[in-house]
């Protein structure tokens, strides 16, 4: 008998927890309710029958069907997170087929953009991020595989029960597969304090995160309340909480090595066997040093404490366990990674030094094997896995022996140093006890048992919670208004029968998410216009009974994606490693691919209520309106560039004003302008000031950096010796690698040496022999001075020169490096130095050149920026007055209509 079948036998009868609590609607079994018989041609499918029954009861009149134009935009934004192209709108409006709408829905559901849109919803629920959180907040560079797994799962319409199993118990599933392991990124998305020496607290905080997120995401219960005390509202005891946490105690998150190479990463050479051999020895020496450090520390303890630590954890009394935990945490400070070497024996230390060198060399030559940030238990998983060390002074180690002994304890007031009593893993008692047979399964594969329990078709919550989340994401509000709380304090469903019917359909149709979504979006309920109806509003002002389409603002990511799409610049490349944090502001890829660093989200994501902390499962996003949002959309370079791109497009398209206006309306709003709007736009053009009143400024700035024969010019933009900031267009030139800088990019450039080193933190200080940079301006006479902003790291002296005499370099300044003062120091990191010169003396010259004369090696980047300035000190931007077309396009991107789903 398979385990799943064993678990099928679980009793669902609630225990004696009080009739009222046991009778709570969400804990009752899901019975497919009868579809109401209604006498209305409005209803297209059973969803409409449930909705119409309430309409009739309340005296509400459903809105008319929205126009085809509105419908295709709504469907595209809702299902793909991208607007339809003007041609697609036209084709749909003119499609004579009776099933035009259904065909459109099928086409959209089959698009791979769909997974990017709905995957993002799930990532909210999974509180997924690509960094560890807390103070260290190290990045998790391979966490993206989970994001791609989620996208792929939605695109494949993976049955939701399988989706749950993989995420909760992927490493325990048979047969082992990379996909299953990657799916455990759900559990592994927990925050970890990588620098927490207090090892009990470190582990407990991580377990709390996993427990809360799992209960919240899949059960729709706010279990976290029971961490410290029995839940005040819901029938969840503190014992239930720690029993539930018990499912996870035998495993840990980590960088897990995968079996199959990833085709997206090319055919990189695999690491030779001597690497594995060296690593093994390296880790053994580390482990010996840890044990030695701990032994030495133990010897300093009072004898009674030493004796206590000898007792195996499972045999300790709670009081003894308390003392043991506090002592172990205290001792753990001795095993910080950066403090282990001095604790090795002489021979070990010598050998360790050699191995460290060997490992670094091999790592520089061979990339790491494909790995993923997942959750793995060396005790209960289907196969043994190789793990790569995580960063931080106190990394979590997959120590089989320790994890075998790990067991759940009930903690007094949630304090990890106050274990009260050991508990057995299991689900909350309200859901009934496991049978004897399944108890064995619980021991062997605890998370698989949990997943099977969750994915059991008789589970009262899983399907309801998911069906409600789908409704919530489609309509902006769930049938249960609190999608993450189905407990007593959560909202009661407005349409309980409809919710149950949807949940039953989901289960009966093999947990197909797309099937349920197709039902929802094909309903008449979904197709209603957003128009207002005063009589309805009297009865139901909040539209709780769905008498119209509820318009809602686009989420931060969608707003950004739609901006990129409307101006035709969206890079539609699918999947792969995330865009690095420092490149997110300029990236043209979909928002889901921007690195999700906790507390440092991409700017738009932070401003428009996207996830920021990613600390816990997020069921509903806030919608806030603040002046910082228009400041972004009006002033930030990202949004300005989108307006410029659209303006270029429409200007190329036609000479006629009205054609251009129409084209812009089509691109941004997917429709033609109305008469009143055309009038307003004409007024705008009348009021918009004419061309520049600013002084003539150089239109083109070129800068030349010296050739480096080892780097082909074509690659310079990506990984060359020099990076040149700004929207540079590289060109090969007989003077070396040259860059012509687009006039709109402004006059600031940053340079840093970014040659890839053996590790991520190698020296990046520029080589003085190559650090001669020449700026060439069209009209030097306009430029009175150059303001240098210097990030002093690694640079000791910079000299500059302006004019046509290349021999007369003057010192701009010197930096203090590594404590040694040298001449006139750069006062501060990023200090500005004005290098001024008299235009009168600059006869024919049109250069500004600076040279980094000396550098000192140090870790990090050295960056200089040079801003040419005019006599009135204003920085040369190379920008002409922004054209009225740019101003117009930018205005359209700021309209309410653009930012909302109608």
């Amino acid at each position, binding site marked *: 008998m398979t385990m799943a079948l064993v678990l099928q036998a679980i009793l669902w009868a609630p225990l004696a927890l009080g009739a009222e609590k046991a009778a709570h609607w969400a804990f009752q079994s899901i019975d497919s309710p009868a579809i109401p018989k209604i006498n209305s041609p409005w209803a297209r499918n059973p969803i409409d029958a449930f909705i119409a029954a309430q309409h009739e009861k309340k005296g509400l009149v459903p809105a008319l069907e929205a126009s085809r134009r509105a419908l295709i935009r709504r469907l595209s934004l809702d299902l793909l997170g991208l607007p339809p192209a003007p041609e697609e709108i036209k084709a749909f409006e003119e499609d004579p087929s009776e099933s035009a709408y259904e065909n459109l829905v099928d086409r959209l559901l089959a698009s791979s953009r769909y997974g990017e849109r709905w995957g993002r919803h799930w990532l909210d629920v999974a509180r997924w991020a690509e960094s560890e959180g807390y103070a260290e907040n190290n990045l998790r560079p391979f966490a993206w595989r989970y994001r791609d797994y989620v996208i792929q799962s939605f695109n494949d319409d993976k049955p939701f029960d399988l989706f749950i199993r993989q995420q909760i118990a992927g490493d325990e599933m048979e047969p082992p597969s990379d996909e299953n392991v990657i799916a455990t990124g759900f559990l592994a998305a927990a925050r970890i304090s990588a620098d927490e020496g207090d090892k009990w607290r470190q582990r407990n905080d991580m377990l709390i995160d996993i427990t809360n997120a799992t209960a919240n995401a899949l059960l729709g219960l706010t279990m976290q309340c029971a961490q410290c005390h029995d839940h005040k509202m819901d029938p969840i005891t503190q014992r239930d909480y720690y029993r539930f946490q018990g499912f996870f105690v035998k495993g840990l998150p980590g960088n897990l090595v995968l079996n199959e190479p990833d085709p997206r990463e090319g055919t990189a050479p695999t690491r030779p066997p001597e690497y594995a051999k060296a690593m093994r020895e390296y880790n053994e020496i580390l482990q010996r040093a840890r044990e030695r450090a701990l032994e030495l520390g133990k010897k300093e303890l009072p004898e009674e404490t030493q004796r206590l630590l000898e007792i195996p954890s499972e045999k300790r009394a709670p009081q003894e366990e308390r003392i043991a935990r506090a002592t172990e945490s205290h001792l753990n400070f001795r095993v910080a990674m950066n403090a282990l070497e001095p604790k090795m024996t002489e021979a070990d230390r010598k050998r360790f030094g050699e191995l460290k060198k060997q490992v670094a060399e091999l790592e520089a030559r061979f990339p790491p094997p494909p790995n993923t940030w997942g959750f793995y238990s060396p005790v209960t998983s289907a196969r043994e896995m190789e793990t790569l060390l995580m960063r931080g002074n106190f990394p979590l180690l997959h120590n089989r022996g320790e994890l075998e002994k790990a067991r759940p304890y009930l903690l007094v007031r949630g304090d990890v140093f106050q274990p009260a009593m050991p508990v057995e893993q299991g689900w909350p008692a309200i859901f009934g006890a496991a049978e004897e047979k399944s108890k064995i399964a619980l021991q062997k594969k605890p998370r698989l048992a949990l997943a099977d329990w969750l994915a059991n078709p008789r589970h009262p919550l899983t399907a309801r919670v998911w069906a409600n989340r789908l409704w919530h994401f489609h309509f902006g509000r769930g049938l249960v208004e609190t999608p993450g709380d189905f407990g007593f304090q959560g909202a009661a469903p407005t349409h309980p029968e409809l919710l149950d019917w949807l949940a039953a359909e989901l289960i009966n149709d093999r947990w197909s998410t797309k099937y349920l979504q197709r039902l929802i979006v094909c309903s008449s309920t979904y197709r209603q216009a957003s128009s207002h109806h005063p009589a309805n509003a009297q009865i139901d002002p909040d539209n709780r009974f769905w008498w119209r389409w509820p318009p809602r603002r686009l989420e931060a990511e969608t707003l950004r994606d739609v901006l990129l799409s409307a101006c035709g610049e969206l890079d539609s490349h699918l999947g792969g490693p995330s865009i690095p944090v420092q490149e997110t502001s300029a990236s043209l890829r979909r928002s889901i691919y921007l690195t999700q660093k906790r*507390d440092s989200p991409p700017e738009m994501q*932070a401003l428009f209520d996207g996830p920021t902390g990613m600390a816990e499962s997020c069921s509903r996003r806030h919608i806030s309106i603040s002046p910082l949002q228009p*400041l972004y959309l009006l002033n930030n370079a990202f949004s300005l560039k989108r307006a410029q791109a659209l303006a270029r497009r429409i200007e190329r398209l036609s000479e006629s004003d009205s054609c251009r206006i129409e084209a812009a309306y089509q691109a941004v709003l997917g429709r033609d302008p109305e008469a*009143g709007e055309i009038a307003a736009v004409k007024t705008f053009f009348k009021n918009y000031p004419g061309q520049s009143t600013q002084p003539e400024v150089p239109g083109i700035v070129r800068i030349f950096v010296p050739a480096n024969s080892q780097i082909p010019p074509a690659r310079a933009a990506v990984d060359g010796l020099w990076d040149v900031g700004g929207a540079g267009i590289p060109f090969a030139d007989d003077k070396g690698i040259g860059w012509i800088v687009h006039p709109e990019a402004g006059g600031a450039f940053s340079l840093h040496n970014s040659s890839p080193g053996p590790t991520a933190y190698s020296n990046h200080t520029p080589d003085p022999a190559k650090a001669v940079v020449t700026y060439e301006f069209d009209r030097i006479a306009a430029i009175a001075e150059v303001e240098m902003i210097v990030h002093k790291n690694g640079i000791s002296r910079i000299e500059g020169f302006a004019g046509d005499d290349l021999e007369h370099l003057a010192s701009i300044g010197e930096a203090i490096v590594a404590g040694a003062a040298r001449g006139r120091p750069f006062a501060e990191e990023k200090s500005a130095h004005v290098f001024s010169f008299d235009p009168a003396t600059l006869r024919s010259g049109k250069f500004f050149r600076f040279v980094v004369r000396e550098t000192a090696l140090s870790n990090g980047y050295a960056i200089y920026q040079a801003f040419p300035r005019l006599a009135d000190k204003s920085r040369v931007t190379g920008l002409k007055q922004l054209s009225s077309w740019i101003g117009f396009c930018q205005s359209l991107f700021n*309209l*309410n209509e653009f930012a909302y789903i109608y």
Partner: protein
Amino acid sequence: MLRRAGLGIGSLALTSLMLEDGVLRAGEETSPIFNTKRRGRAKSVIFLFMGGGPSQVDTFDPKPDLSKLHDQEVPASIARNLPLSAMMGNAVKRLLGCPFQFSRYGECGLPVSELFAETGKLADELCVLRSVWHDTVIHVPGEYMLTTGSILGDRPSLGAWLCYGLGSDNQDLPGFLVLGGKFPNTWSAGFLPARFQGVALGSGDQKIPNLNMPAGLSASSRRAQLDLIAELNHQHLERQGGGVEMELEARIRSYELAFRMQSAAPEAFDLRRESEAVRRLYGLDQNDTAEYGSYCLLARRLVERGVRFVQVRAEGWDSHGDLKGGHLSAAKKTDRPIAGLLRDLKQRGLLDETVVIWGGEFGRTPTMENPGNAPGRDHSPGGFSMWLAGGGVKGGQAIGSTDPVGYRAVERPIHVNDLHATILHALGIDQHQLYFLHHNRKEIVTVNGGEVIQEAFS
């Protein structure tokens, strides 16, 4: 829609949400978060955060016995009661005498060390809390503790709470601004809506993100754009009619707010508008004090304009070695600007409505670390000093005390949550009334509740 967005928030909070949107007008004095008995005088808070952890026994908590016991082991009577705190392993068990002189200042005769000779002159304004405690010995969690009430860094910062609860008195500036900020979670909105997050001011000429118009755009072009946006949005609103209109209107209004912020903010940030005398008062004329002085002066300009909360961070207090040199240098940068700030607030009548908080993430051990020529002190959260000034706080007093060497709070221990309750009280807020319903829990600033230090008020 707004109503929906507000679901899960206490009704009063919704009121403040709407207030800030300009949906409701002011005149909300009766808001239930206010203490009915006593409306606090304070309107704003300036938190002078001393990153690294200044030593209590070398600043505001004189310990004559400590110098007598220099180089001796911690007396057993004290050692017995020390918490088992892992990091304390680094400190040698021998005590380190205080290398600084204390003098009595003001009418109250409050003792202050020479490190804060200028601030000491304002002793009659200071209410020193000598028994503040918590239990993390690590820097960043300590900063989270002081700013959010918990070491995890995932709760709202005090400034975010106050903006959520009280809104802002200046619609043209963000209500919570951060100067010299280093760790984003110390100004995070936590589970509150993201808009209440502090805005960390940049160091360049663009202090608020995206405040400057793009090059090549003139004010009249921007005006034409805003007029077009408003006109098209109004036409759309008319076509749409009803429903989400409140939210749409709020969004329309946000464009005008943004426009006003664009002109108001540079004025607020422009320190050149201050007289030479004022600039000197804050130490802007000297290299050592210019940076922190400019933060303090900016803080005054901001509270003067109705900004609710200004967090001003200094660093350099983490003297594990060379306590004397390290603390002298950190104090030199901050003493004069802080004294200048207090004087300036007072002479402008702003001190009464501004609570100034001084302190770091923890104090330092009375024992020595890195013994030798230049010993220092390790982190110590068991009993350290902070002070409050202004906002109705009674100055010229010290509350609580530590043991004879200054290791642990013994009399009137003040947990950080108590400190936060006290600050709310100064603003007239009942800590239990300002809440946010999050995952079914009425989350409050003080986590599980704190105790107001009543004797801090006159």
